[in-house]
């Protein structure tokens, strides 16, 4: 592998890694506040890709296309919480289906979503037009090395999205409310925080993170109705590297995951993409709370 090769792989890996991190942030925020996540997070991303592709294909300018995706995905996030997650609160953990029923209901929603997208846009793979440049393979040269402009801009956009998310989480009243509800819902309500609304907003934000990921990932991959599962799995893996608790660990973990994947793929084109996943599973055995996670006692 030449140095040029290596650096190009690094950039490609970072682009995918930033997407994984962004998707995983959605899992992180939902887990932080409700101890549940959307097992269809990847399918939300998939839906966002298709809507964005359709909107751009229909000739909408990028900002309007983004607006369309964001609107639909917010509604989806709201609907998921309202109809597939919240109703489970009626049942205690001892009941059939048990404390993990949310895994199955969110996965059930994902199946419905896949099928709906199939009905709307067909089963075949599609190519998304580039978002930022006029051609997919616009290359800019820095030093001796050529980079795809699109990839660089996608990395920038993903980082901007992570930055915006962090700003909301660490610098706004909403972020304070989220951490308070996560810490203790009863105490939060005694401070005048509307717990129910905060939880709903968290699921909407989680869906929006999938929306941004979905828009950005379009030009990097082929888009098809069953691509979601892979993203769900990888986002779960990335989030678990950060122990579902450490927002910075998730960003670092996501980038590392993407880069490791790109390098492994180069080294072993047949099974390379599986290596990072196997690594994360091994880590789960060795360090169950995540590499970047903090350990929590499991005693009642």
């Amino acid at each position, binding site marked *: 592998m030449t140095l040029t090769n290596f650096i190009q792989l690094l950039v490609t890996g970072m682009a995918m890694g930033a997407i994984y991190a962004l998707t995983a942030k959605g899992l992180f925020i939902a*887990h932080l506040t409700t*101890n549940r*996540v959307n*097992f269809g997070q990847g399918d939300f991303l998939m839906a966002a890709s298709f809507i964005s592709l359709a909107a751009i294909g229909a000739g909408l300018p990028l900002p309007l296309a983004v607006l369309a995706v964001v609107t639909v995905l917010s509604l989806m996030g709201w609907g998921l919480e309202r*109809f*597939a997650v919240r*109703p*489970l609160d009626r*049942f205690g*953990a*001892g*009941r*059939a*289906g*048990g*404390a*993990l*029923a949310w*895994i*199955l*209901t969110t*996965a*059930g*929603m*994902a*199946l*419905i979503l*896949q*099928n*709906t997208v*199939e*009905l709307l846009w067909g089963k075949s793979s599609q190519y998304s037009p580039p978002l930022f440049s006029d051609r997919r393979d616009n290359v800019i040269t820095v030093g001796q090395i050529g980079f795809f402009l699109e990839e660089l801009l996608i990395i920038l956009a993903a980082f901007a999205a992570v930055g915006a998310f962090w700003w909301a989480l660490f610098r706004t009243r909403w972020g304070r409310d989220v951490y308070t509800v996560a810490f203790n819902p009863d105490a939060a309500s005694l401070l005048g925080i509307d717990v129910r609304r905060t939880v709903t907003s968290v699921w909407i934000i989680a869906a929006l993170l999938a929306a941004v990921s979905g828009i950005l990932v379009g030009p990097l991959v082929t888009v098809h109705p069953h691509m979601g*599962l*892979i993203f*769900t*799995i990888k986002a*779960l*893996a990335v989030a*678990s590297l950060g122990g*579902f608790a450490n927002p910075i660990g998730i960003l670092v973990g996501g980038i590392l995951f993407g880069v490791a994947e790109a390098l492994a793929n180069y080294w072993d084109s*047949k*099974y390379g*993409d*599986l290596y990072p*996943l*196997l690594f*994360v*599973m091994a880590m*789960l*055995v060795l360090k*169950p709370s995540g590499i970047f996670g903090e350990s929590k006692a*499991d*005693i*009642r």
Partner: protein
Amino acid sequence: MSVQNSRRLAPVGWLLAIILVAAWPSLAPNPFFVHLGQTFAYTAIAVIGLNILLGLSGQMSLGQAGFYAIGAYGSAITATSFGWPIWLSMPFGLLVAGLMGVLLGLVALRTRGLYLAMATLAFGFIVEIWAQRAVDLTGGTMGLFGVPQLDFGDFRNVATYTFWVCAAALILVQLGSDWVFSSSSGRRLRAIKESESFAQTVGLNVPLWRTAVFAASAVLAGLAGVLFAHQSGFVSSDAFSIRLSIALLIAAVIGGLGDTRGPLLGTAILVAIAEVIAGFHTIGLIIYGGILLAVLLLVPEGAVGMLRAAVKLVRRADLPATASEAPVPQALTPRPPPPGTRRGGSLEVVGLSKAYAGVVALRDVSFSVAPATIHALIGPNGAGKSTLINCVAGLYRADSGSVRLGDHEVASLSAHQRARLGLARSFQNLQLISGLTVIENVMLGLPRLAGEGGVRAVMRWLAGLPHEEAERARAIAVLDALAIAHLADRTPGELPYGHRKLVELARALAQDPSVMLLDEPVAGLNPLEAQQIAIALRRLRDSGKTILLVEHNMEFVMDLSDRITVLDHGVVIADDTPSVVQADKRVIAAYLGADDIEAPESGKVTGP
């Protein structure tokens, strides 16, 4: 009663099942139904495994298709590429699936809930991708052809033979499942599902059970895969996608999780749906997803639960209305407990300290509980009582100090090891397993009896005879000692709170403990109920049990205890008889505050 009756009919049921299986190929209107029977049988086997894993032990797997695939390939590849005979390749498939199960069970050992769901999902995905890409070995999506079928040399009747083999396997697996559900294993798995820390305190090695049940469900999924491979004679990686894992979950959920009959019903419904929606395949996933949501949100108990509710409704119409509310005797008179094998032992705590994140919860705590006495541990909020009792029980590990149970030093032992040495505890927030009857909850506490689950018990169970008489008799004796034997077949949820407290006590007693740790035995009880508990505890002490209790009801404590240890801010401030403790200045100050606070002044106050 109805339970006993249905048990007695069990052998008849099995006989009917065998006759049906034998006759099905001739009864079936056309070969398609024989084929459907095969599919039903092996799918049900995988669903049974999932039901035991998720329904009984509460562990989620989204990767059963992975084990199924490994079983299928394990047998198909050895039988085709290596030419192994079927009788060798099939067990090999099971073996590989089982090994994978143990390997993934290691993940289950270390993680739970979300992490386990994620790990199994990733596992299933990895297997699917491997199957697609390892074309040399698996044939990938094009598939592996010519997998030998179960024709026993008579290839015209291959459908019949395959059906018989699959159905026979299903009957054996269902028998196994029924046995698990009606024996101590099932009770223990339920206990692990509802509360791991509780399960430890009745002496269960929780990690071992969790891994074992994971491996067992993997073997069953593998068996289904093996049968599938030899049924179709063609194995393609397309068969093993996440959708298969989800379909198996749907069958388990529709049937009714946590009931041994659920998988059969659920699989039947799944197979039927699959046939019906073949014509609507464009919206197949919407239908699957919709069913999953509808069942979990509207009827989480599944088909079995609905049947049970229907039966109850019919029964209720038959019976006089009052029969369902069994009379609750107002005054119960506990009798002396049944003779146990263990005498009350002593409990000695020496120099115990424990800190959390730098905050000292216990500092150099020492006290000893003499055999056959009632010893109370009291102190104001935040004194460290819960920490202390959890350190004694082994749920927390103390930073330093020693805990001696009779002649054993137990400070370094785990909770389940301490339980086996004769330490029983009750919990402040009751830890009764809601899916079990009162007597089954008590049996959970029983130590393993000789012959439990032995050949004789299995034979009696197969014959539909009571197979746990010894255990039931012991449990009834314990319940009788607390005067609640008449509640044996009720579920805890139906009982008033005072009776639930007695059941919790009975379960601790069933452990045949030398020392009982009781965490707030009368919290939430009215004075009459508290009195009954007091009478029961005195009887226990008089029969030689040692009791250490934490309680806030001072009348109860002062009236009952032989000796009282008072904790405040993690330090022992008094250790004496009730009357001395009641008059102790330091104790009064700990509870009511020292009398040294100045009168109120106005004005603002600055921090220290």
